[in-house]
């Protein structure tokens, strides 16, 4: 399943890159791409565990930038 999420309060481009790397390494994620300019996360991951993976992704994001949130 592929879905695009809006990211709130994504302030730092280097952080976006770090998040993208971290999310890309999560088990079950096929591909993850964060666009700093559009403030969007494009996530492609296993169908069955998608919601779980989104929660994991949020953790990766918070670790890098505390305020940044995935809008569901």
């Amino acid at each position, binding site marked *: 399943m592929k879905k695009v999420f809006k990211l709130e309060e994504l302030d730092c*481009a*280097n952080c976006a*890159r770090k998040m*993208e790397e971290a999310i890309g390494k999560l088990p079950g994620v096929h591909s993850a*791409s964060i666009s700093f300019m*559009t403030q969007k996360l494009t996530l492609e991951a296993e169908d069955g565990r998608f919601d779980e993976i989104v929660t994991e992704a949020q953790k990766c994001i918070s670790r890098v930038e505390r305020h940044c949130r995935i809008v569901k």
Partner: protein
Amino acid sequence: MTRRHKQTLARILVAGVLLIAAVLTPQAWGLWRLPIFLIPYFVVGWDVLWEAVCNIAHGEIFDENFLMCVATLGALVLGEYTEAVGVMLFYQVGELFQSLAVSKSRRSIAQLMDIRPDSAHVLRGGKEVTVDPDEVQVGETLVVRPGERIALDGVVVEGSSSLDTAALTGESMPRDVEEGQEVSSGCVNLTGLLHIEVSRPFGQSTVARILELVENAAAKKAKAEHFITRFARWYTPVVVLGAAALAIVGGLVTGHWGEWVRRALIFLVISCPCALVISIPMAFFGGIGGASRQGVLVKGGNYLELLAKTRTVVFDKTGTLTQGKFALSGLYPVRDEEEEPLLRWAALAESHSNHPIAQSLRRAWQGDVKDHTVTDVEEIPGRGVCATVDGVEVLAGNAVFLSQHGYTPAQDVPAGTVVHVAAQGRYLGFALIADQVKDHAAETIAQLKAQGVRTVMLTGDSREVGEQMAQRLGLDQVHAQLLPQDKVDQLEQLLDQKPEGTALAYVGDGVNDAPVLSRADVGVAMGGMGSDAAIEAADVVLMDDDPAKLLTAMSIARKCRAIVIENIVFALGVKGLFLAMGAFGVATMWEAVFADVGVAVIAILNASRMLYHKKSI
């Protein structure tokens, strides 16, 4: 400026004043000056410190907040109070500038794509109601007043008007529409009231598809973006380790620990790769946004990169360089003064036929068939037609047809479809029907050639027609009589022939050339308005039928590449220079903070140039 920006600005100003006050305190106070300097330090930098603490708790040691804290706290320990506070202050100024520049660019891009309609007026039960475009059903009737944007795709059922299609095609000439014509969402109604029957739900409308495509484009990253990502992964750790090595080795060798630690702290200030990480994707995104404003949809930064190094352009003929519509292109009467009768007889004799050739004759003639009597029509498929027009026997058809009836038609005829005409027992001459070349086709080819691009045309038409067209347009090469599958083979050969390190673009109209579009390095489809197939198969979509848009796309791509190279060279150059100067003790923290945030701001401003681009033709 958002509230947060304003708060930061206020903190910077207050801290600036406090810093000046602190600097004015007498040197003799010694260590007692530290708390006075700490006030502005915390005013301006508390959030950086707090972020650093939080990130350390997460194990993020190469976090820029943390490194900035180490650098400034280190300076405080070394007794360089002014530098410590000053660097934190300038770091915040730089961050504020960056944030403002980025949000300005985000806004400009959002404006570029501001084609999403907020509401739609629909007729329900004879009354007009205003609803969200998402709620409108297929088959409902939209009411669009002058000045309003058409919310959904549909067909005009009442009224006529002219439409501003600039938001979709970049074309400023208004387009006239009347009953029965299809219109695309996103166009602005200029003059008359229109009733439109909705043909597609909002999710599949032109506007929704364009927005989706352009927004998704950011996810397809260019090679340069991947390079920056890889580079950023290593840059910070390498610089930090370099700083540690510098302090330890320098300290051990010379014994001047303070001096070498100071030099090492300069490294930490320059350790963020932000300038590159922000400005490179921004240049590509600005390019994609700027192109969409001109009616060119690019599906990803990677395609902009490929377009910039395109040195071979392969065109499809029909529908791409030509309009794909047959029209009268010349009258060749035996007697010079008989142009009008030649066309009139031909048009009337063919007046009962719906063949494209007959239609083009009627269009060219412009007379009214009702003023004449056409009887005894006998049509021989593939040959011609024989009819009695106003009591006169008229023959119109190919050379074989006229020869069969005992006439001697002209032998030396140009390429195209020829209709020979005989009336009153005499051969009058012939009319030439040909596909019409698009307005900017020749100009586009000429400009491509001037840029050193090889131009090739593929066509399913006869060799004669193809070669004549190629000569007229000045194409380098033409391959004719190709079946759709031959086109792929031919393209493979051209791909083999292209110079090393360059790309090949194929421009087609998306009608039965999808395999070729996807095989080319860059597949460019024309006339994206309303054609799903074209939008689906291509990497770049030219929204209107103008081949000159390819030049626009290529020049945007080249400008983008230039900005990306400038930014990479500039940012790496300045950072490298200041790292070297820091290591040799020439640079101070003041210069280092410029090398960090100053460079980032300049690179961002340079990238934002991508949002503004002039037309090529």
